[in-house]
């Protein structure tokens, strides 16, 4: 039990993620988390207006069940398997985050400077979450997949489009962190 409460090393976690992808393929499905966003649009009736959402979403119920399980998995990991220690980030990451104005770096999974209700109460804080979420939702469907569909499944099956998409993920990520972060924070 104690070993499960420790942070799981990358060489255990990475292969486990691959196994999850493989098990879903074995069940005749695919590993794709962002597809659920499209399903939510379809459930909300978007198919009546936009043909992209006019599909039989009930065939995607299995994926919504994966999401439900993932939420429960998050709950279990954060309660039963909770590790009270701070995330062991590199010293350089802690230092550069301190310079940006982030305190107690790694004490929680997410920085309260962005995700506490107090932070979301400000116009800027709210805008960060909305713009970030919007870009993820728009970009993932435009690119036809997210980290699970392209970075894990697509690269594992040696598909060029997925490599291009992952390069895109990094172009966007590097621009955000290196150019836009100093302007935002």
């Amino acid at each position, binding site marked *: 039990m104690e070993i499960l409460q420790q942070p799981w090393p990358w060489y255990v976690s990475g292969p486990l993620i691959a196994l999850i992808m493989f098990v879903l393929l074995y069940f005749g499905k695919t590993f794709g988390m962002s597809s659920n966003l499209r399903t939510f649009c379809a459930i909300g009736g978007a198919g009546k207006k936009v043909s992209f959402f006019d599909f039989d979403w009930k065939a995607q119920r299995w994926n919504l069940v994966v999401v439900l399980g993932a939420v429960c998995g998050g709950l279990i990991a954060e309660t039963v398997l909770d590790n009270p220690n701070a995330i062991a980030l590199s010293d350089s990451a802690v230092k550069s985050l301190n310079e940006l104005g982030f305190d107690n770096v790694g004490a929680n999974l997410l920085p309260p400077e962005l995700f506490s209700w107090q932070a979301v109460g400000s116009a800027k804080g709210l805008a960060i979450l909305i713009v970030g979420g919007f870009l993820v939702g728009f970009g993932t469907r435009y690119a036809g997949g997210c980290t699970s569909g392209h970075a894990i499944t697509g690269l594992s099956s040696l598909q060029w489009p997925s490599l291009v998409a992952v390069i895109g993920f990094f172009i966007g990520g590097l621009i955000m*962190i290196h150019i836009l972060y100093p302007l935002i924070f």
Partner: protein
Amino acid sequence: MKYLKFFIVGIIFGMVLVKSEAVSWYRIYEMFRFQSFHMYGIIGSAVITGALLLIIAKKFNLKTTENTSINVPLKDRGFARYILGGSLFGLGWALCGACPGPMYILVGTGVFTMLIVIAAAILGTYCYGLLRAKLPH
């Protein structure tokens, strides 16, 4: 119950992503600053393991539970959609530190402000659907 196995897969997925800290905004920041090997180790070892599993499945002609052969659906051809869509995704991923899987998982860990991010992501997906015909693919 035919959905139970998917529920279990989801639970394991959620646990792995929290316990590996891959759901952490800090880890994503660190990755894009190249300040730690951690995230590259996770993604890299996942891709290598995944590739090996797919090779083994092909070699031994493993079947799915539906009795079809195991294969990964091929992505459509194209360049613009992958580089442009990917870049937009990357901007958002780095800003809120969560891609679609972690968004749901983090709600489970008690970060309810993540519901705002999920709502915005659904809106973003909807807007892509609206503009789809006008975008280069």
